[in-house]
C-alpha cells in the first residue's frame, strides 16, 4: 500500500479528468462537480484502507456517476411530486464504466475547466475557491481552512459560484478565439492570487494556507503542459518558482519577516531558481514580453545575485521601465522607485514616489509610506523615515508587516546603523 501522500497526489491529478468525463457525458457542471467531490472524499477514505483500485480513474468515474444519478433521480422525484413533466434520467447502463474511463481522456479538460471556474461573472474570491475544488481536487474543508473561514461559509461560496456560472450561461467549452485570450488572462491571475495567498502565509500557524503555493505551482505546470508556447504561462510559472525559491529564508522561526536584502541566500531553493531561470530565459527569447515574464525576469536577477550588494540594479531598473510601460500600476511604480533609488540615489527615487501622492488607488496604502520611509532612511533623514515606518505600521492590516515596520522604526530611534 502506498503512502497517504501518494493517494492525495493521485486524487488531485485525476480530479479534473474525472470531472471532464462526467460533464462531457451528462452536462450539468454544478451537479457533476458535487458528485466528483463526493467520489474524491469516498476515495480518500477507502483507498488508504483497501488499496488503490486497479483503474483509479474508472473507479472515480463509476462512483461519481452513481452519485450524480442518485442526485438527478432525487431531483426528478421532487419535480414529479410537484406535478411537473418527468425529466430524463440516465439509464443504468450509464453506470457501467465506459472503455475510455481506464485511459487518460483524449481531451485534457483542465484548461476548459479552469476557464469555466474563472468565469468573469464570479468575484475573485469565488473564482479561487471553485478553481481549488473543481480543478485542484481540494476538499471544501481544506479550502476553508486555507482562507481562515468556517467550512459552511466556503461551501456557500462554492455553491453560489456554480449557480452564478449557470445563470450567466457559462458552458463547458473553450470560448471562441477573440475571447479566449482574455479568459486565459483571468485564469493566470487567479492562479497567481492562489500562489500569493499561500506564499505570504507559508510559515508558522498558517502552514495549511501555505500549501496553496504548491497547489498553484502544480496547476500552472498543468496549464504550461497544455500551452507550451504561451510566453505568459511560462512567465507566470517562472515567477512562482523564482519567488517560492526564497520561501525558507523570508521568515524567522518567531514569524518575523526578513527583507530580501537581509535573507540568508544559502537557504534559497537552487533547483527552483535554476528551473525558473531556464524557463524565463527561454520565454524572453521570443514573443512579446508580458507582465509575468518581466516580473519573473526581475525575480531572476535578484535570485542570481550572490549577495544583496552584488544585485544588478541597472538591469532591474531597465526591466521595471519596461514593466511600467507594459502594465503601469501604482504597485509597479513603488518597486520602480526603489530600483531608481538603488541606481540613481534615494532622492531620485523619492521624486518618482511623489507622483503617487495624488493617486487615490495607493495614496492611503501602507506600502507607499513604507517605501518612502525606506528611501528617506537611505537618504539619511532618520526622523522622517521613523515617522514614515510608524505611519505604515498603523495602516497595515498584516500582523507580521506591522512587527517588521515597528522594528525598523525602533532601530532608527536607537541610533543603530541603517539597514544595508
Amino acid at each position, binding site marked *: 500500500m502506498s503512502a497517504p501522500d501518494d493517494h492525495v497526489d493521485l486524487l488531485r491529478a485525476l480530479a479534473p479528468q474525472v470531472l471532464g468525463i462526467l460533464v462531457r457525458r451528462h452536462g450539468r457542471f454544478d451537479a457533476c462537480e458535487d458528485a466528483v467531490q463526493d467520489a474524491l472524499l469516498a476515495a480518500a477514505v477507502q483507498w488508504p484502507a483497501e488499496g488503490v483500485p486497479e483503474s483509479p480513474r474508472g473507479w472515480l468515474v463509476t462512483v461519481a456517476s452513481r452519485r450524480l444519478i442518485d442526485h438527478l433521480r432525487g431531483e426528478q422525484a421532487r419535480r414529479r411530486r410537484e406535478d411537473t413533466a418527468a425529466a430524463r434520467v440516465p439509464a443504468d447502463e450509464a453506470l457501467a464504466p465506459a472503455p475510455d474511463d481506464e485511459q487518460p481522456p483524449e481531451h485534457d479538460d483542465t484548461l476548459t475547466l479552469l476557464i469555466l471556474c474563472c468565469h468573469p461573472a464570479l468575484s475573485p474570491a469565488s473564482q479561487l475557491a471553485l478553481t481549488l475544488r473543481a480543478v485542484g481536487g481540494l476538499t471544501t474543508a481544506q479550502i476553508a481552512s486555507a482562507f481562515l473561514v468556517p467550512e459552511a461559509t466556503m461551501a*456557500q*461560496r462554492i455553491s453560489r459560484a456554480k449557480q452564478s456560472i449557470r445563470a450567466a450561461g457559462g458552458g463547458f467549452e473553450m470560448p471562441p478565439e477573440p475571447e479566449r485570450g482574455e479568459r486565459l488572462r483571468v485564469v493566470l491571475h487567479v492562479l497567481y492570487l492562489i500562489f500569493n495567498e499561500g506564499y505570504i502565509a507559508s510559515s508558522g*500557524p498558517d502552514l495549511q*494556507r501555505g500549501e496553496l503555493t504548491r497547489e498553484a505551482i502544480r496547476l500552472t505546470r498543468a496549464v504550461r503542459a497544455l500551452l507550451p508556447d504561451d510566453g505568459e504561462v511560462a512567465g507566470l510559472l517562472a515567477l512562482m518558482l523564482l519567488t517560492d525559491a526564497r520561501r525558507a529564508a523570508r521568515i524567522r522561526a518567531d514569524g518575523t519577516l526578513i527583507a*530580501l536584502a537581509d535573507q540568508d541566500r544559502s537557504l534559497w531553493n537552487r533547483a527552483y531558481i535554476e528551473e525558473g531561470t531556464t524557463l524565463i530565459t527561454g520565454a524572453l527569447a521570443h514573443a512579446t514580453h508580458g507582465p509575468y515574464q518581466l516580473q519573473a525576469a526581475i525575480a531572476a536577477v535578484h535570485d542570481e545575485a550572490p549577495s544583496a550588494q552584488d544585485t544588478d540594479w541597472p538591469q532591474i531598473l531597465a526591466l521595471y521601465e519596461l514593466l511600467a510601460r507594459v502594465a503601469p500600476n501604482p504597485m509597479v511604480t513603488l518597486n520602480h522607485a526603489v530600483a531608481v533609488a538603488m541606481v540613481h540615489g534615494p532622492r531620485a527615487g523619492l521624486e518618482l514616489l511623489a507622483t503617487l501622492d495624488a493617486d487615490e488607488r495607493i495614496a492611503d496604502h501602507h506600502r507607499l509610506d513604507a*517605501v518612502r520611509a525606506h528611501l528617506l532612511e537611505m537618504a539619511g533623514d532618520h526622523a522622517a523615515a521613523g515617522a514614515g515606518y510608524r505611519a505604515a505600521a498603523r495602516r497595515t492590516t*498584516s500582523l*507580521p508587516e506591522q512587527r*517588521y515596520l515597528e522594528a525598523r522604526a525602533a532601530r532608527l530611534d536607537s541610533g543603530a546603523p541603517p539597514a544595508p
Partner: protein
Amino acid sequence: MKYILLIYDNANTRETFLGENGEALMAEIDAIMKELTESGELVGGEALADPSNTRTIRVVDGAPAITDGPFAEAKEHLGGYLIVDCESPERAAEIALRWPSARFSPLEVRPLMDPAGAEM
C-alpha cells in the same frame, strides 16, 4: 479581506426591535443574514446581552479588581458584532448601512488583522 461590524445600541434599541414595530426590523435583519450566508460572506456574528450583565475586570497593582456593570453609563454601548469576508471596504460599508439599527445608532466597520504578510 475580513471586516468586523461593531453594532452599537442606544438605551432604546432593544425596545425598538422587540416592540410593536420590531417585526419589520427583525425581518430586515433576517434577510441580510440570509443574503450573507448564501453569498458565502458571513464568517460569524453574535448579539451581546444587555450591558447590565457586564462585569468589568482590571488588574490594579497586581491584584484583580472586578466590578459589576459597565464602568460608566455610556450613551451608546456595543450590542453585537458581525464578521464578514468580502471583496472591498465599500462592500463592508454597504452591509453596515443596510443594518437596520444604523438608523438609530452607529456601526463601526474595521478590518481584521491578517496573520500573514509579505516581506518588503
